[in-house]
């Protein structure tokens, strides 16, 4: 991190981490992210704390999924740098990156007729070569990933036959089989009912407890606050606030970010902040 090109027009100076803090596994500086000509994010700096369960929240179209893609190098920034454990991610070999960082996209496509076991096995690609397309450690990693996600019983089923909740656990098993310390999940709970959302988030919490650094984009603020150890709130391609759920989830912040007037109370179950929107005229009766 000695000679980082100063991002043009980015006023924020690079945050200097406290000397005792472990190095951020992912660190981005001066990011400009765009699809074709449409700029979504400009001049953004972000650090993902080591060992955290970081959740990125923000209104639709604020650039949170775009940011996640850039951190997972599936989107190349127009400007700025992303560093993985202190090395520029663009300078690293693709498979080398994939052995350190796994990303589950929002809507991956399950190939026709693929079985659960085969899909999970595809997470092992970064460890394989043309001549050694499978090894004992591949088999063990697939088995462990299926056990950790409770999908062992589904191993021989076709992915297309599964329910939404089962399918999401299978995809998570695939990225788990990638055996990385860093896991990026793009809206892993979207399209799931509330019980399956909790199911997936509990699974994420267990992966976090097992020592991984997680970064997830979530829509549900209350779930985000309950499971996150670190939150990043975005609006219009900018980070408005980041910190612990208690620091980020204030009534003022929620109103600034989402334009929603609300009260914040303590979640009676977990003690984490809980957003309660103010009642509208109709609801108030």
């Amino acid at each position, binding site marked *: 991190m000695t000679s980082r090109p100063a991002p043009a027009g980015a006023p924020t100076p690079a945050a200097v981490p406290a000397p005792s803090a472990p190095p951020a596994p992912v660190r981005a500086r001066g990011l400009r992210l765009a699809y074709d000509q449409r700029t979504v994010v400009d001049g953004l700096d972000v650090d993902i704390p080591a060992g955290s369960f970081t959740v990125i929240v923000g209104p639709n179209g604020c650039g949170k999924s775009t940011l996640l893609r850039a951190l997972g190098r599936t989107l190349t920034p127009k400007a700025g740098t992303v560093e993985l454990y202190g090395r520029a991610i663009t300078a690293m070999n693709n498979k080398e990156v994939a052995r350190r960082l796994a990303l589950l996209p929002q809507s991956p496509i399950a190939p026709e007729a693929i079985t659960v076991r085969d899909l999970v096995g595809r997470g092992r690609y970064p460890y394989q070569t043309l001549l050694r397309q499978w090894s004992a450690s591949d*088999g063990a990693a697939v088995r462990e990933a299926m056990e950790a996600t409770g999908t062992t019983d589904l191993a021989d089923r076709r992915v297309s036959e599964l329910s939404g909740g089962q399918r999401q656990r299978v995809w998570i098993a695939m990225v788990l*089989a990638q055996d990385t310390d860093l896991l990026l999940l793009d809206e892993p709970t979207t399209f799931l009912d509330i019980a399956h959302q909790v199911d997936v988030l509990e699974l994420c919490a267990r992966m976090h407890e097992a020592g991984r650094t997680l970064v997830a984009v979530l829509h549900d603020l209350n779930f985000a606050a309950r499971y996150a150890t670190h939150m990043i709130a975005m609006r219009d391609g900018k980070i408005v606030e980041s910190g612990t759920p208690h620091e980020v989830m204030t009534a003022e912040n929620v109103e600034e970010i989402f334009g929603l007037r609300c009260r914040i109370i303590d979640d009676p179950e977990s003690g984490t902040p809980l957003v309660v929107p103010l009642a509208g005229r109709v609801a108030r009766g």
Partner: protein
Amino acid sequence: MSGRKDASPAIAEAAVATPPAPRPDDPGATDHLRVASLVLPWNRRAVIVIAVACVAVIASVVAALTLGKLGVALPDLLSVLSGEGSKTQHWVVFNNRLPRGLVAVGAGAALGISGAIFQSVTRNPLGSPDIIGLNGGAAAGAAAVTLVWPGLLPAPVGALLGGGIAITLVLLGAGRGFHAPHRMVVIGIGVGAMALAFVQFAVTRTRREQAQEMAAWLNGSLSARNWDHVWTIFVALAVFGTAALLLSRGLQLVEMGDEAALALGVRTQRVRLAAVAVGVVLAAAAVVVCGPIAFVALVAPQLARRMTRSAGPGMVAAGVFGALIMTVADLVAQYQPWSATLPVGVLTAGIGGVYLAALLTHEWRRGTL
């Protein structure tokens, strides 16, 4: 959640701790073939299906050598093949039937592999080279350099250029490249029609006897093949079929979507471009040796996928099934009782048309078209 457990152990540690011995309750769809340091995943069912199909291909080539008035009887076949036998037998086998059978095998395999590549890249069974105008373009290219501007370029080069131009037009016309497969199908049908119109135009400029030959080639014909055709298709297969095999792992991952594949370390854009180039060359090579035979590229990969019940492009299976369809279709075309000279392409078009109609109906219902 069925397997609710407490905090799962770190995968890395567990991977080391777990004995690598295969467990009896692990009856994988995938086994692994070990040859020295080479470890390849394989699917038992797929291997059996492919083996059976290979035997069937050989059987139909043998049938092509032995059937009919001039056919060499089975007991004599080996001696004729090893250079003995009468002059007539020798002539029938080496100048007529063997090249024809081998061209059928090679062209069928090339079309099957090309179809598997394009169906994988477009994630759509309709995205095969015969539907999206590639075969038509190759035919137009070959017609251009043989009939309209004779001697300008060798026919294979013309076919390759024609195929390349057709696929470029389809990609440009679809706008978003490979991200809108259904648009590629619609535009491809248009490009294919334009290409065939050009071929018809070329035919009108030729003398009558040449035009008749041209018409047979345009339907896809295996009559009067020689060893040049055999070498053309098998050299193309050896080089580009191997390339397709090497690309198939990457393609398999690209089927999960660009983002998922990129995240796993696949250079999606590069894999896709290389695969398309290989698919164009294979389809063009098949068109050069036997004309734009319809529907083999569409049907073979589909049949292969269903029979092997495996996911992914399955290049080997698609190739073997392409060869099988082609050799069987040519046998039927030769020995059917209705017409003395039925080009094989007419037959594949007839059967393939029914399949296409069924597929279109299915896709329409699924809403993918």
